[in-house]
């Protein structure tokens, strides 16, 4: 019962967000200054075909009716036809969801692998030289434009050393992991500095708790306290931090996918914007928004696994 309450509560809290996402997606075409149809067709279209496109998109209907129709169709994954590709937007966007999700999961794993040891060292030796070095390294990493890092990694590991492929998807899983190492590492380098800082402060906070004092009084070694007691209790903040930064991760993915010509949602967005393919942009903004909502929901669920106390709150 507690569990269902918790989930229902979370879902209820997300309703305004989902409503807002639908508004952003809906108005992506209505707020275009001038005539979106003319802009989409780049000015060379007969009045008849403009009128036909307008009718096809339903832009000649009252606004409220259009919104209702948009939501009804969006729920079923129908966002109309792409102007450029003459294909259903749902299909174009749909086939790119999984590659992006794969890239993001891969980057997250890499980012955790980079950030966790650094945060542990930083927290263990806080305000020592190594802590300062990690923090300054983080600042440098934070300031690196992801598209620039991507280009440099491509140049060095792909073209100069020829260790790794710079494009393509790979055939089986292992090959895919190899193919996506460079783009994932680029996103991970972008995410890791923030993870290190938030993890470090989460761990420092845990370290002041009473049970750590008890563990210390029992005579446990600092190493054991850190790995067994601190790390486990710092898990909730880690999940929160990852969930909060999902928007961040997606932003990084947009640019990195474009740099590596990776067939995901981000590169599709950049292309749709440059062609002014509004139905695709509408579909993508909904999908991006929904991805964030789903990740937050997953984070809420995983809190229960880590710490059942959240159900009682």
């Amino acid at each position, binding site marked *: 019962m507690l569990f269902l309450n918790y989930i229902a509560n979370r879902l209820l809290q997300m309703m305004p967000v989902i409503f807002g*996402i639908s508004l952003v997606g809906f108005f*992506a075409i209505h707020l275009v200054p001038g005539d979106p149809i003319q802009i989409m067709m780049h000015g060379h279209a007969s009045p008849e075909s403009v009128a036909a496109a307008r009718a096809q998109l339903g832009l000649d209907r009252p606004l409220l009716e259009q919104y209702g129709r948009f939501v009804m169709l969006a729920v079923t994954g129908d966002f109309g036809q792409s102007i450029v590709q003459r294909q259903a937007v749902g299909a174009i966007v749909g086939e790119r969801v999984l590659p992006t999700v794969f890239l993001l999961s891969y980057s997250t794993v890499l980012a955790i692998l980079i950030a966790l040891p650094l945060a542990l060292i930083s927290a263990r030796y806080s305000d020592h030289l190594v802590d300062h070095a990690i923090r300054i390294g983080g600042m440098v990493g934070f*300031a690196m434009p992801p598209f620039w890092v991507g280009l440099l990694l491509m140049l060095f590991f792909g073209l100069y050393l020829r260790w790794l492929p710079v494009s393509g998807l790979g055939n089986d899983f292992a090959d895919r992991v190899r193919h996506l190492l460079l783009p994932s590492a680029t996103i991970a380098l972008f995410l890791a500095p923030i993870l290190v800082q938030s993890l470090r402060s989460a761990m420092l906070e845990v370290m002041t708790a009473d049970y750590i004092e008890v563990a210390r009084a029992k005579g446990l070694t600092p190493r054991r306290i850190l790995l067994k007691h601190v790390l486990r209790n710092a898990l909730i903040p880690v999940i929160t931090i990852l969930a909060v930064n999902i*928007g961040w991760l997606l932003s990084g993915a947009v640019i990195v996918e474009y740099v590596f010509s990776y067939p995901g949602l981000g590169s599709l967005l950049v292309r749709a914007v440059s062609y002014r393919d509004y139905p695709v942009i509408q579909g993508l903004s909904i999908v991006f928004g929904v991805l964030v909502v789903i990740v937050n929901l997953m984070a809420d669920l995983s809190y229960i696994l880590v710490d059942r106390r959240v159900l009682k709150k």
Partner: protein
Amino acid sequence: MTSLANTAPLSRRLLQQLIEEVRHWPISLKIGTSVLTLIVLAGVFAPWLTPYDPYYQDLLNALQAPSWAHPFGTDMFGRDIFARVLYGIRIDMQIGFFTTYVPLTYGVMLGALAGYHGGWFDAVLMRIIDVAVAFPFLVLIIVIIAILGPGVHNIYVAVFLVAWAMYARLARSEMLVERTKDYVLAARVLGFGSGRIVLAHALPNIISSSIVFSMSDFVLNILLVSGLSFLGLGVQPPAPEWGAMIAEGRDFILDAWWICTLPGLVVVLTGTALSLVGDGLARRLGHNRKSLM
């Protein structure tokens, strides 16, 4: 509080106060501020620091490697990259500054008012913030630019529409704590209007966390502008914007690594300096690292 300091002219006293303040700065703030000042000065005095025109095409000297004549080399049109990077400071720092501090101004005010008053205004504002934060920032900006069309002007519009939300959220949560304090109560007892209490009394106390955060935000906004320009949605060529320069160098990366590498290094230097200032400010203002970095 020596009598000497009090009788000295005002400018002298201010200078002494400034020196005294700087002496208390943490080392990161000192280094960050110095580097940042140098970068800004380099942008302001760019015409005196380089003999080259950032737009002048010298096709005979295209794709020259870094040398004494061209410290950062030349690009495919023979333009001097060092000159372009210097003039780029004017573009990137300016856009970075305005995209950070304009939204900060009204974001903090909106958040503070919402936190003080509560009620329907607070509820509506928080829902709007939830939506603004739910979207990946870059995606939302790109969608708005898709609506309005590319260009600097529309970057400003897009960022001004979205970026205030973080500041409003920050200021609101600070205000919720602040409004229970005695001095706010005292001001209310004195019969001051809520506008006066929020803006004149509470604001100075809640703004420091936003200022610390703004340093990380400044870095992100420089990355945003250069990223959008890299994608062709921001500052348009031939303007010497850092991200646009990196995009131009992309096709020549094998033969001329310097075209995209060196402007990127300047972005990293600028961003690191800003982060150092943020870190130093957080320490100086007594916040325990509320900045992103």
